[in-house]
């Protein structure tokens, strides 16, 4: 246990919460993720004005409104390009990206791969509930093939997307999985992800109790991974081959240097650019 009796934190988790009341369904795992994010920011004592939270569209993407930092609630699937642009232009900021399994792995799936490949210093937090909750319960890329619902009778029959496998193959520098029902463990994962240089990917199993009430059972299914994190891609890949989707903890910590182009002087003003697009 680490205890610091000298240096008391000045900022506490509630300092990072905005006055806007979340409109998620009661019981949603995203409340817990929000709490974990604010705990992580407090633990790192990051000044709110030095943090930006960027998102796309979906239940999870409402998070920028609920934190008292800079934020941008962007367009569907495009949180990573926005965040990448922000981070390369303002490397002094800590940039978190919030997404869900629909936003992040379907329409935003291509950006996910290339953000991992570029390895810009971002922390990508995906709240995975294996369903499109905001639009009332359609199967998402991570939905189990046999999940039977009114909108997909008998299930889709399609193999789910495996986010950790994709992240590893595409070059993410930090890969972890957590569970919203473990808010303090999740805060630790997010803290480590922010500290780790390069593109950090954290998949958080975050139950949707409205459209996936079966996910209430996740609390009995998740378990700590019995292995330590590795910096060996081959070993991480082998572990993923036997992953049941409920292992939690840090899987991979790479040592690739983050991509950060030099920040130079602007070569054109906004007005110049606008003129070039004028019809």
């Amino acid at each position, binding site marked *: 246990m680490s205890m610091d009796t000298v240096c008391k934190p000045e900022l506490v988790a509630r300092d990072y919460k905005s006055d806007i009341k979340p409109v998620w369904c009661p*019981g949603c795992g995203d409340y817990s993720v929000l709490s974990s994010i604010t705990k992580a920011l407090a633990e790192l004592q990051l000044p709110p004005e030095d943090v930006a939270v960027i998102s796309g569209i979906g239940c999870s993407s409402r998070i920028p409104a609920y934190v008292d930092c800079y934020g941008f609630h962007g367009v569907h699937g495009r949180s990573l390009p926005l965040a990448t642009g922000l981070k390369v232009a303002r490397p002094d900021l800590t940039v978190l990206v919030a997404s869900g399994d629909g936003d992040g792995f379907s329409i935003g799936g291509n950006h996910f791969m290339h953000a991992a490949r570029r390895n810009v210093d971002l922390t990508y937090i995906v709240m995975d509930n294996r369903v499109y909750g905001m639009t009332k319960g359609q199967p998402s890329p991570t939905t189990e093939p046999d999940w039977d619902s009114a909108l997909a009778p008998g299930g889709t029959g399609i193999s789910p997307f495996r986010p950790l496998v994709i992240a590893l193959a595409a070059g993410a520098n930090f890969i972890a999985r957590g569970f919203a029902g473990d808010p303090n463990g999740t805060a630790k994962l997010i803290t480590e992800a922010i500290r780790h240089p390069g593109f950090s990917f954290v998949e958080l199993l975050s139950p949707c109790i409205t459209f996936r009430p079966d996910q209430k059972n996740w609390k009995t299914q998740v378990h700590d991974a019995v292995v330590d994190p590795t910096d060996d891609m081959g070993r991480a890949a082998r572990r993923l081959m036997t992953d049941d989707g409920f292992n939690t903890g840090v899987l991979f910590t790479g040592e690739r240097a983050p991509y950060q182009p030099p920040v130079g002087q602007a070569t054109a003003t906004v007005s110049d650019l606008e003129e070039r697009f004028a019809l």
Partner: protein
Amino acid sequence: MKPTNASPTENLNINNIEEFLAHARAMEREAADQYAELAEQMEVHNNREVAELFARLSAIEGKHVDKIVEKAANRDLPHLAPWDFKWQGDGAPESAAAMEAHYMMTPHHALTMALDAEQRAADFYRRVADETDDPQVKTMSLEMAAEEVEHIAWLKDWLKKYPEPDVGWDDDLDPPMLQE
């Protein structure tokens, strides 16, 4: 991983009063915050009766925080990272199991949730008392456990007013959709 908000199973091993008070303060504060958050959630979903109930529970826990802050006056409490508290893997023992909440929940469900939380808090304080070597920690922890037991009795009385609702209380042919 243990189930959400389960009682801790590791040796608690809290052997000085400052560390104990740091745990107690965090536990009561998280409980107060959790109830306040649940009250807001119910307000948003226009479940006013349960919103008021959670707000009341939050105020009660807030008073506990004040008591602990008073006991901790002039003491230098250690800073603990969220994951360094003895309730590893779970939320603090006294926090309501928020993931069990439902927008159509009734006072019966809310009070049952609170009762479970108080029981976990009482268990936590008792276990600290059992496992500590510090007589001051033992005394204070037993005092707090006794307070939690009082709350349990009080909540049980309160719950008598609200029998368990019939099956189907959560049926909704048009479940919520977030407002964009």
